[in-house]
């Protein structure tokens, strides 16, 4: 039986906006296909060998708690994460977890936090929060499907030259509200601002992520199609509303 080893990084601090639903979704869609999956939570202070995992999930958190984990990153995990990314391991990183992969975060007040620098981008704090349901179209290398989600961030992320976004904004703000880019796609890293959580309503993206991890591990990936009726209903409802500028039931 095939198996994926999933690492949920910093679940105790990066757990806002239902993002743990992503783990649930990855796990279920593997189990429904009879692929085994083992989930390990790696918390602040844990000294676990990160090279033993196939897939990493990093969620978003509160500003207050994000500071707590910067020190933990410095104590060795930063280098391990960078190595895993270069090694082609699959990552799903949301909001704060996504920002963390860049060079730095500069707050609106001008305080600069050094981040991992694993991918060439940076984030600056903005005055307004970019909040609401939104939609974007994935790049071809990520399957090209349409993703719906909920964004809530004041950080504006700017990708370096040649760095590919995860997708192109159809409606909403995305990385910075200016250049229509959303998230990042680098090797097998999928970074996004989308909460919601992102995966359950976007099963094609979830399968794309699983496929990349299975291919990296086994050299091939066969994903049996699933009945995505409920998934499609939830996806289409939000997409239709977002595209017609009705962002809530008001």
């Amino acid at each position, binding site marked *: 039986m095939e198996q994926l080893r999933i690492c949920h990084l910093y679940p105790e601090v990066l757990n*806002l906006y239902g993002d743990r639903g992503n783990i649930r979704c990855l796990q279920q869609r593997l189990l429904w296909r009879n692929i085994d999956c083992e989930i390990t939570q790696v918390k602040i202070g844990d000294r676990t060998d990160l090279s033993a995992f196939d897939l990493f999930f990093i969620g978003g958190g*509160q500003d*207050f708690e994000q500071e707590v984990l910067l020190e933990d990153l410095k104590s060795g995990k930063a280098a391990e994460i960078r190595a895993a990314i270069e090694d082609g391991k699959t990552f799903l990183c949301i909001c704060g977890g996504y920002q963390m992969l860049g060079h730095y975060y500069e707050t609106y007040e001008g305080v600069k936090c050094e981040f991992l620098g694993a991918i060439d981008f940076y984030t600056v704090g903005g005055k307004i929060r970019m909040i609401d349901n939104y939609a974007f179209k994935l790049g071809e290398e990520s399957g090209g499907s349409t993703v719906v989600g909920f964004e809530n961030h004041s950080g504006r992320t700017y990708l370096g030259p040649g760095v590919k976004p995860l997708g192109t904004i159809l409606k909403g703000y995305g990385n910075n509200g200016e250049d229509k880019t959303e998230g990042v796609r680098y090797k097998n890293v999928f970074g996004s601002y989308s*909460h919601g959580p992102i995966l359950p309503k976007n099963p094609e993206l979830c399968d794309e992520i699983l496929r990349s991890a299975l291919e990296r591990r086994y050299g091939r990936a066969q994903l049996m199609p699933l009945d995505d009726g*409920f998934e499609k209903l*939830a996806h289409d409802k939000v997409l239709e509303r977002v595209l017609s500028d009705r962002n809530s*039931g008001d």
Partner: protein
Amino acid sequence: MSTIRTIAAVAACKAARWTLRLLHRGGTALPGKVAMKFDPEVLRTVSRGMKILVVTGTNGKTTTCRMLEHALTRSGVRCLANKSGANLLSGVTAEFVCNADWLGRPKTEYAVVECDEGALRQVVPLLSPEVITVTNLFRDQLDRYGEVMHTLEAVRTGVKTVPETTLCLNADCSLTSSISLDVPNPVRYFGLDVPVGEQKETEISDARHCIRCGTAYEYKYYTYAHLGGFYCPKCGYSRLDADVAVTQISSLSAAGSQVRMRWPGGERDTSISLPAVFNIYNAAAAVCAFTAFAGQLREKYGTQLDPEIVFDALSDVESSFGRMENFDLDGVPVQMILVKNPAGCSQSISYLTQLNQDYTLAACLNDRTADGHDISWIWDADYEKLSEDPHLKQVLVCGDRAEDLQLRLKYAGIPEERIELVPDFASMLEKMRSSKRPVFAMPNYTSMLELRGLLSQATGKKAFWK
């Protein structure tokens, strides 16, 4: 002193409310907005001289207010309460203005005010209450405030505007009790001295790290969510002894709870007529607030109010709209449990799964402004527990985001064929009416208003603003 502005504000507010009611609309905020156009601080005038208790916090505001209001009524005094749930500045203003005569003089001496956490800083400086109670702080409608730390700051800012007001804080909530760290106000604490539920760390915690030094908290015991006997192993910041504490929980059932409580008058048994653990917290909050209030009145005005009356009130307080409210829908018992955030939702699910009877669940989810556009919190609530409940026979889902809720339940492990997507609330009412078993309705805020409106019509209950 009444000025022309006050008189104009009062007249405009009353006229607006009267017009809305004539149109059969429960206008709760608009009349207040109209009044504030004439006099932005009209609330200060129309509440002058009143003795006021304010309740804020994420969960339990409405029920705690109802307990306090009932205790005051049982003490034989008339009091004003913003029962309709309009808890922003405009809604509170409307309630007080309509309680005043045409010159802006209040008609009652007492008031129990539910106040939104974000609106506290606008409301309390105008009211100068005797007591502010903070029930708890959990992550709630995050798209409105950002994050739970922002909510905490908002509450602290509000408290700082009234440094003489006594605070009643939840001792078991590390976020709430931290409000005392840098405010001059006198503080009383309430809490549970004993564990309840499964004694394990919940996967989702809104306060895992010490608010003073960032070290992970440890717990002597848990009650629910991040509440319990927390302490920081590094800096020593910890739960403080509660002035009002539940020392023993003798029974928990659908009809209510029996507990033992330590309070400034000693230690005594008390029954609480509303079920579930969160109502034990609300009861402790009410005892703490009422005792502090009675003390303030005695000291400041020489008014005698017997604090022990609050216990009588707890034993027969009725649920407020949508919160554990019971209906008889042509023979089908319906209990409505409002859920607005993960902590409250998980606690409500725990309550359901503890009952030993087959039931239908009617889950509703809207995403209007009053609910928050962000519904991602449903993934943090413990719906998985429902999939292990053999008594859950059928799930009906309805609302603006019913499809999301349906998907959440699928991933929680509830078989798809047991879940039914209902297109609108009128159809939902019919489905509930034809249920072969009791129905538990679990709506969020605006879906509760809609469903409750239909239910009250069908069962002859009063509309919420009456």
